[in-house]
Each structure stands twice: as structure tokens, then as C-alpha cells.
């Protein structure tokens, strides 16, 4: 379908980094919007408005944006297949960025009539990405576990787009459908399906690689994937109780196998990125436990544990590591040599970022239990500060690529 195949599995730096840059900006916008409308958070149920827009700035603007940028760079390593068309990657970015901006701006200003064009651009961007993912997985060799997670995530992406279009059609044209059922399916397919399965699949090779650890046993990973896939299908059809229990079992096995793998690692310092990854795993388990228990604390608490807690925290933890790694690769030239990853890693800033982000997530969760609006404000402010710290980190990495890192040798070991 696409010509102009990339020769190598290593993409030009501008391709993945444009997705990471856009996600950095959308993350700031999401937290700023939440802070500006913090009074509306505790009464949020599902309708349009700033809280809905903030949620979609995170899910589409940050999570999907990074998922596309990161998988197009990392999956070719696992599948031994280059990305099929670099122009299609650029097209996906050019559709997704204005699409997310238009969709969330319309939603924030309660204008369902204007959400359609943004939703359409986002859908087209995801369709282009889905084709790229399909072409990459179709000829994949090696790392069967990662490839199978990729196929399952792709199937969820297709179903996710279908439910998303149906929901937008309901808002815009009054399409008659069971809103609650479609919304539940949309959430399960997005958070546990598309994003969750990509995260779990790539974890199987990425985290052991970063920590110099053996990968989890493939049989365990495949069993976990099978259970998770069945759970997602059941959740999509409204069988929440059984789905959440099965999903919880799958997630527990995944976390246990990853922890066993990390325990056997050769490098001891794991750094703030792995702290975030572990917090995200706790949130993944907590979200499924909440669902299994019938959502005590309400669906708002569940949503906070799920989106900023599990998915955003995991993604930020991984980004803390792969941004300097990819930047060091791209900063290398024959004349200047390869810069050290530690020279591209502002360890203190990343520590501050991790602390602020975890504080934001905890404050928001506590606010839903205590019903205290000032805690929402404090949580959103901490989230905004964390997003600003992450933007500084992104700028730092880009500046280091331009100036070729730091010639000084390290005084301390680099974290894994």
C-alpha cells in the first residue's frame, strides 16, 4: 500500500521526536485546563466540557501521540521490519496534532457541532498509523510475544475508533445508541486494549533491555496476553465483573513476571524512570481491583487511577529513559563520536518530575475520596508543574543533541 520504504529500522530523529514534542505540549495543556476548571472535576460524570477535553488531551494528545512515535521507532527493532513509508508517519502527525487541538477545543467550549472535523482528523491519523502497524506486523520476524501484543492492540484500535466515531455521532447528530455501554467499551478498548496491550507488549523487551535483565518467559507472556484479550472482549460487551477479575489476574501475572525479571538484572541503579513504572503497575492493579469491586469511590476515582495513574505514569517513566537513549544515537557522528547517555540525562530534574507527577496523581485520587476542591487544585497544579518539568527535560535533551552532550566523563553510574 505504501511505497518509499525506509531503508533502515532507525528512523530519522525528527520523526519520533515530533510526536514526543507534541505530546509534551498537549500534556501542559491538559493539566492547565484541569487547573483552570478544577471546580468542575469533582462533579464530572461524562459530558462535554473542560474536564472531558482535558481527559482527551491526555489520552489522544499525550498517550496516543507517544504510542505512535515510540512504537514506530521501537517496533521495527522487535519485528526486524523497517517502517514502510516515512511520509505516512509525517501525515499521521499532521492529521493528529490539529485534530486533537480542534476536537478538544470544541469539547472544552461545549460545541459538539465543531467536534466532528477534529474527530475525523484524529480517526484518519489513527487509520494511517493502523496501516503502518499492520504492514510492520504482517512481515514481522522474531520477538513473537511483542508481535502478538501488537496484533491485539491493533484489533483494539480498530474497535476503539469505531466506538469513538459512534460516540461523536451521538453528540453531533443525536445518533440513538446506548451511551453508557458504548462509553464503557470505548474506555476498555482504549485504556486496556490499544494503549495497555502496546505498553505491556513493549515492556517485555524494552524494560529488560534497559535494566540488563532476562525477559519474562514467553509462555507466561502469551498466557497473560490471552487472558487480557478475553477480558477486554468481555468488558467491551459490558461483562465488567468477570472481565475485571480476569484482567486483574492477567495484570498481576504480568507485574510479577516483570518484577522477577528485574530482580535478575545486572545493573543495580534503576533511577526515577523505574519508580514511575512501578507506580504505574500499582495503579494498573488498583484500577482493575476497583472495577472488580464495583467502582467504590465512583467512576471518577477509577478514571484517575486508570489514565494519569497507570497509562500516563508508565509512559512518562519509559520516556525518561528512551528520550536520552534515542537522542544519544542521533547525536552520534563519525567526527564527534557517540555522546554518553548520562550526559543527556538530567537526573535531578527527572527526580523532581517523577515526584511532582506522583504527587499530582495521589492528590487527585485523595480529592475524589474526600471531596475537597482545594486538593483537586493542588493536584492539578502539581501535574502542571510536572508537565513543565518534563518540557524542560525535552528541551534539555534537544539542546544536548545540538551541543553533542557533555564531553566530561560521568562521576556516578548512569541509571539503568
Amino acid at each position, binding site marked *: 500500500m505504501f511505497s518509499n520504504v525506509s531503508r533502515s529500522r532507525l528512523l530519522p530523529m525528527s520523526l519520533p521526536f515530533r510526536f514526543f514534542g507534541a505530546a509534551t505540549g498537549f500534556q501542559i495543556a491538559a493539566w492547565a485546563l484541569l487547573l483552570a476548571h478544577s471546580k468542575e472535576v469533582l462533579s464530572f460524570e461524562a459530558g462535554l466540557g473542560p474536564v472531558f477535553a482535558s481527559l482527551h488531551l491526555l489520552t489522544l494528545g499525550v498517550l496516543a501521540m507517544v504510542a505512535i512515535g515510540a512504537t514506530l521507532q521501537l517496533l521495527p527493532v522487535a519485528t526486524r521490519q523497517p517502517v514502510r513509508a516515512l511520509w505516512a508517519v509525517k501525515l499521521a502527525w499532521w492529521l493528529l496534532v490539529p485534530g486533537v487541538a480542534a476536537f478538544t477545543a470544541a469539547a472544552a467550549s461545549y460545541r459538539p457541532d465543531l467536534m466532528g472535523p477534529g474527530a475525523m482528523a484524529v480517526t484518519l491519523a489513527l487509520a494511517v498509523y493502523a496501516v503502518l502497524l499492520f504492514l510492520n506486523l504482517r512481515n514481522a520476524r522474531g520477538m513473537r510475544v511483542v508481535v502478538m501484543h501488537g496484533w491485539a492492540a491493533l484489533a483494539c484500535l480498530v474497535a476503539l475508533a469505531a466506538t469513538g466515531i459512534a460516540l461523536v455521532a451521538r453528540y453531533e447528530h443525536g445518533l440513538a445508541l446506548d451511551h453508557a455501554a458504548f462509553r464503557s467499551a470505548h474506555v476498555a478498548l482504549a485504556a486496556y486494549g490499544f494503549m495497555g496491550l502496546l505498553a505491556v507488549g513493549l515492556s517485555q523487551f524494552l524494560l529488560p533491555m534497559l535494566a540488563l535483565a532476562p525477559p519474562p518467559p514467553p509462555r507466561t507472556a502469551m498466557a497473560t496476553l490471552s487472558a487480557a484479550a478475553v477480558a477486554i472482549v468481555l468488558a467491551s460487551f459490558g461483562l465488567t465483573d468477570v472481565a475485571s477479575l480476569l484482567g486483574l489476574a492477567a495484570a498481576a501475572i504480568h507485574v510479577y513476571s516483570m518484577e522477577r525479571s528485574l530482580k535478575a538484572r545486572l545493573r543495580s541503579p534503576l533511577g526515577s524512570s523505574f519508580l514511575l513504572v512501578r507506580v504505574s503497575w500499582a495503579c494498573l492493579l488498583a484500577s482493575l481491583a476497583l472495577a472488580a469491586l464495583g467502582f467504590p469511590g465512583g467512576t471518577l476515582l477509577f478514571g484517575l487511577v486508570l489514565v494519569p495513574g497507570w497509562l500516563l505514569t508508565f509512559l512518562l517513566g519509559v520516556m525518561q529513559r528512551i528520550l536520552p537513549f534515542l537522542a544519544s544515537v542521533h547525536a552520534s557522528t563519525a567526527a564527534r563520536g557517540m555522546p554518553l547517555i548520562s550526559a543527556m540525562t538530567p537526573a535531578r530534574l527527572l527526580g523532581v518530575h517523577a515526584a511532582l507527577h506522583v504527587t499530582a496523581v495521589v492528590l487527585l485520587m485523595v480529592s475524589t475520596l474526600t471531596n475537597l476542591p482545594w486538593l483537586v487544585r493542588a493536584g492539578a497544579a502539581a501535574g502542571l508543574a510536572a508537565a513543565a518539568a518534563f518540557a524542560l527535560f525535552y528541551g534539555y535533551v534537544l539542546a544536548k543533541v545540538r551541543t553533542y552532550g557533555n564531553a566530561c566523563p560521568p*562521576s556516578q553510574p548512569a541509571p539503568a
Partner: protein
Amino acid sequence: MEMPVRQVSRRLHEEHEATLALWSRVEASLAAGKIDAALMRSAAVSLAAEIERHFAFEEKELFPRLAAAGEGDIAELLAEEHVAIRAAGERFIALAKADPADQRLKPLGLELAERLVSHVQKEEMSLLPALDDLLDEGADHELASAYAAL
């Protein structure tokens, strides 16, 4: 890291594991503020052999095959890392030979540990899986024999 299929990939993988184990010890020791003279000497000897044999084999036999298979920029990247590791490695080896308790070994050792770990990660992700795809049994046997003879 996945176990490679081909003989030559497996051999390189085993050497990578030994390198990671040794340099993780070096890194931990230096980070604790110790300059363990015996460990520094052992690291220097191992590094000299690695540069002499492992690097030379990859540059002569494997990187050209990678480049011919359309992975030229990865081959180039790995070769650039060899240059940086050689430069730091030669200074480390000279210092460790002269005085294995020399304090200047700490920054050099930490730099080498980081460079070697990062290099092994990239070869495990890109070079070895590519070799598994590129080599047939005959070429694999030939390369494995040539490597064993070095």
C-alpha cells in the same frame, strides 16, 4: 535479551553477557568509591582482548554484511561506538597497567561501563537478530569457525 539462533550470534551473545557482568562489577565498585586494583587489572585485560578480537571481527566480517542488507546506518553507528570505546579503552588499559590503583581510573571506568553497556544493548537489539536473519547455515558455520580461529 533473547537467545540468538545462529552459532556466531550465540558466541557474541555469550561474550556480551560476560562483558556486562564484568563491567557491572567495575561500575558498582567505582561507584562505591573503591579502586579495586585486581578488578581494574582484570577489566583492562578483558577489554584489550575484546577490542583486539571481538571488535575487529565485527568490523571486518559483520558490519559490512549489515550494511549490504540495508542496515548501513546501524552498522555505522556501531562502528562509531567502537571508535569511542577504543579511545577510552586504550587510556584505561594504559593507566591500569601502570598503576591499577590510580584515581583517574574512576571516571574512565564509569565512562567505559556506560559505553560498553549501551553498545551491548544496541548490538543485542539490532546486530544479533539481523545476523540470525541474514546468515544461512553454511555462512554461519564459516563465520563461527573463523571467529574461533582468531
